[in-house]
Structures are given as structure tokens and as C-alpha cells.
């Protein structure tokens, strides 16, 4: 009786899923699709690109957020910054991409500002920050989207884990500012934030709207790769999209089951 509810919901989901998978299997039963996808389609470079962008973005966001929390005094809870920092969380990927295009584009705000101070004379001279092969625009956009969240996260952790007090304690034990930072503050905050960072990593891997709007044709992130094959007029590309999606699914499942083993088991104690 107890498990019935969960099982029914899980089954419903699995049911829809497997119908989709059956569809995938029947369409891509010919190994030709799979062979193509695995060896010729460039799916691995898309995955690699996605991974690289994700790691760079996460790294930058973590550093920036930590620096912000340690420098800016968020304890002034009603100050403008403490409120404004929540604003970017209300902006979705599609709007962020639009704004990035308007700010980072060659005729965008930054370009106009550069022109105003005399650094460039025409839009063509402005460096390509969007539609570029390194994904700089994508990185900057995602960075702008998730850093505010990390700032709030680290600030909360700072409060709840009483980091200020522990830092003070370290000082009384003789630590220098650098030592207190590297041995007490950073380890505490980073370890506690890890699960949330991991979740964001997963979300960033599958990022879609931003690379779709301001990414280059090549290389591209995995979600865009899958989508462009799915939506292409060339109908033979569709099974490839299915195959790629399945591949991604399997990879996530594999990573998921590894993470499962890492999870601390909830203790069951008799009373």
C-alpha cells in the first residue's frame, strides 16, 4: 500500500519513456545510425565542448561568488545589493541570450562603449564574443546567470555554518588571513556547496537556449547538436538525433549510478 503510490507514478513515467525508447529502437535498429553517431557525427566533440564550457563556467562562477561574499558585506540584509542579487534569477536562458546578443554583439552595448572611448571605429573591429568558436559568449551568459545564485548560496552557508566565528577562532589560534582563508573558510564553504554545484553542472551540460541563440555553428553544445538533427529538414537526421539522445541518457544514467554509490546511506536505527 505504501509503495503503491510511488510505484504507479514511476511506472507511468517509465511507460512513456519506454514507448519513446521503443520508437528509438525501431527507428535506429539498423546499426548504421549508431555507427554514424558514434564514429562520424562529432557527438564526442559536442560532449567535450559541453563539458569544457560547463567546467569553465562553474569555476569562474565559484571564484567570483566567493570573492563577492568575502568582500561585500551582505549582512546588510536590506541594502540594495542584497535585494538586487536575486534579480538575475528571474531571467530565463532565452532572455539572457537575447540580452547577451544586445550587449556582447558587435553592434552591442559594449561595442558602443568601446567606440565612445575611441578603442574601435566600427562594429567590425569589435572582437567576436558571440557566435564564436570558443563559446565565450555562452560562458559569459551562463556565468551571469548562475553567479548571483552562488553568491546567495555562499552567503547562506557563511551564515549557517558560522564561518565568521570559525574564522575568528582560527585567528586566535594564530592563523594569518591567508591561512584562515585557505584552511577554514574555503574548505567549509566549498565542501558544503558541492552537491548544489554538481546539480548546476548537470543543468549546464544540457544547456540549450543560450547556445542555440548565440553559439557558433561549430563547435556546439550537445543539446543543440541533438536538436538541430531532430528539427532538420533532412529526415534521415532524425534517427541520429534519437541515437544521440539515447547515448546522452545512458551516459547520465552511468554517472547517476556512480553518484548513487557515493551517496551516504540514511541510517536506520531501532528505538
Amino acid at each position: 500500500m505504501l509503495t503503491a503510490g510511488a510505484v504507479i507514478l514511476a511506472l507511468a513515467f517509465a511507460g512513456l519513456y519506454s514507448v519513446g525508447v521503443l520508437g528509438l529502437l525501431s527507428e535506429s535498429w539498423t546499426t548504421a545510425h549508431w555507427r554514424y553517431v558514434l564514429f562520424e557525427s562529432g557527438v564526442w566533440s559536442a560532449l567535450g565542448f559541453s563539458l569544457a564550457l560547463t567546467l569553465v563556467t562553474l569555476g569562474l562562477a565559484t571564484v567570483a561568488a566567493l570573492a563577492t561574499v568575502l568582500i561585500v558585506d551582505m549582512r546588510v540584509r536590506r541594502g540594495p545589493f542584497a535585494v538586487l542579487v536575486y534579480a538575475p534569477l528571474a531571467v530565463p536562458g532565452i532572455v539572457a541570450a537575447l540580452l547577451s546578443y544586445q550587449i556582447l554583439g558587435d553592434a552591442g552595448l559594449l561595442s558602443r562603449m568601446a567606440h565612445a572611448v575611441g578603442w574601435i571605429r566600427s562594429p567590425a573591429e569589435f572582437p567576436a564574443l558571440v557566435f564564436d568558436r570558443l563559446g565565450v559568449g555562452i560562458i559569459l551568459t551562463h556565468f551571469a546567470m548562475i553567479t548571483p545564485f552562488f553568491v546567495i548560496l555562499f552567503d547562506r552557508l557563511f551564515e549557517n555554518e558560522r564561518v565568521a566565528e570559525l574564522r575568528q577562532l582560527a585567528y586566535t589560534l594564530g592563523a594569518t588571513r591567508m591561512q584562515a582563508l585557505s584552511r577554514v573558510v574555503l574548505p567549509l564553504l566549498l565542501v558544503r556547496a558541492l552537491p548544489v554545484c554538481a546539480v548546476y553542472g548537470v543543468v549546464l551540460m544540457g544547456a540549450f537556449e543560450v547556445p542555440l541563440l548565440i553559439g557558433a555553428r561549430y563547435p556546439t553544445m550537445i543539446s543543440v547538436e541533438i536538436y538541430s538533427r531532430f528539427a532538420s529538414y533532412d529526415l534521415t537526421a532524425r534517427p541520429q538525433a534519437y541515437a544521440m539522445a539515447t547515448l546522452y541518457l545512458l551516459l547520465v544514467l552511468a554517472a547517476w549510478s556512480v553518484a548513487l554509490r557515493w551517496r551516504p546511506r540514511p541510517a536506520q536505527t531501532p528505538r
Partner: protein
Amino acid sequence: MVSGVAVASAAGANAAVIRAGSTSLLCVLIAVPLVLLLLLSVTRHWSYPGLWPDALQWSQWRVMLSGDRGLLDALVSSLLIAVIVAVGATTAGFLTSQRIAGHRRRGVLLMLALLPFAISPVVLGVTLNYGFIRLQLAASLWGVILAQFLFAYAYAVLLLSGFWNTRIAALSELAESIGADRFQIWWRVRLPLAAGLLGVSLFQTFLISWFDFALARLIGAGRVQTLPLLVFDYFGSGDFRLAAACGVLLVGLPLAAVLLNRRLLAWPLTAASSRV
């Protein structure tokens, strides 16, 4: 000693200046894009290299909302879909998270329930697409609602599972001991205590649907129009004014809600610091 104090207070003053300066800079960095979005929605021409639009026409808003640009329709669609998804996902998530919490294999079940959330929405959309075609849900409002529901439901389970701790179990038992039946335990103990978290869940699942682009596009297949899809269409056709207008509508609602009650986004943040 005196010079020591003077140095200390000078350092303190320096730190205060740095603090104030960085804070202001960050505030500007956040405000500029938002203001830009608003400006873009009423700008017809903005010739290079001007730092300000040539002309602002606020009257454009009345025209845009009058109906023939699709903004109003998309707004209504988005709202309807998001409300249904939010209520459905939160309810289902609440019940499921309770079942999972009491289960022996809750670690595994939780990981399973989170699966839709872990794969990218595009992958979810692509894998569900074939099944939906078979079930004749593709290119329909309900297909989009169901797909978004699956995604939001997984998220809600994760969010609400934090509610079912030993304290709630003890309070439920206590109520039972005093004489409450199952309905009364839900009505008088669990729901009142979960109210805050349920509100957060409703808001966040609403946002998942409100902001969704991939699933609406993949499953909706052009038949369903939502605000994010409109932003994309107008962006593609180069009509940045209308794209920005849709953006303003998209962002406006959550922005207002969050600035009024920051706790609506509290959940993932508090979970990190109270991880059981």
C-alpha cells in the same frame, strides 16, 4: 600605539571604500541588462554608435498587447500551462516525496525520481516525442503540459523531500496518539507545517514551466505558442523590439514576486546548508 591605531583605522576605512565601491559596481552590473531589456521593448531605432536609443515609444506597449502580435495569446497560454503544471507537479511531488521518505530504499527511489530532471530538457523532449506521437499527444497543449509536468514533478520531489524528517514523523505520530485520523493528521499537522515549502514549490515549478523553451518547442511542434517561443521567433526574425517585449513579460512576473518575497527562491539554498 597611536600610529598602530591610525593604521588600523585607515585599513578599515580602505576596506569600507572597497566594499562600498564593489557593491555599487555590482548593483549597476545587475541593473543595466534589465533596464536595457525594458528600453529595447520600446525602441524603434537605435543607430550605431549611440549609447542611447534614438527614440523611445512607450505607446508601443498598448499596441503590442492589443492582440495581433501574439503577445497576449502567448501570455495567456503560458500562464495557463504554468499554473496547471505548478499545481500538478507540487501535489504529485508532495505525495511522492512522502512515500519515498518512509521507504527503506529511499536513496535509490529518490535518485530514480530525479532522472527526468538530470537529463537535459531537449533529451527529454526528443525521447518522449515518439511516444507522444503514438499517444496522439504531440503538437497539443496537453502534450506540452504533460512533458513539462514530468520535468517539474521530478524537481518538486527533490524539493519537497526535505520536509519529511524525523520531526514531522514524530509530530504525526503524536497527533495520532492524541486521536487524530489520517485526514486530520494531513489537515491539522502536515499541511500547515508544509505551507511555506509548498508555496516555494508552487512558485518554482511555475517558473520551470513559464520559462520552458525546449519542451514547448519539441512537443508543441508549432501548434502551441508560449512566451519563450515567441522570444525565439522574434529573435530569429531580427525583430528585437518584440523579442524584448516578450522578454519583459517573461521576466516581469517572477521578478516582482522574488523582489517582494525572496524566500520564494529559498529552497535550493537552504538545502545545501542543512543537508541530512
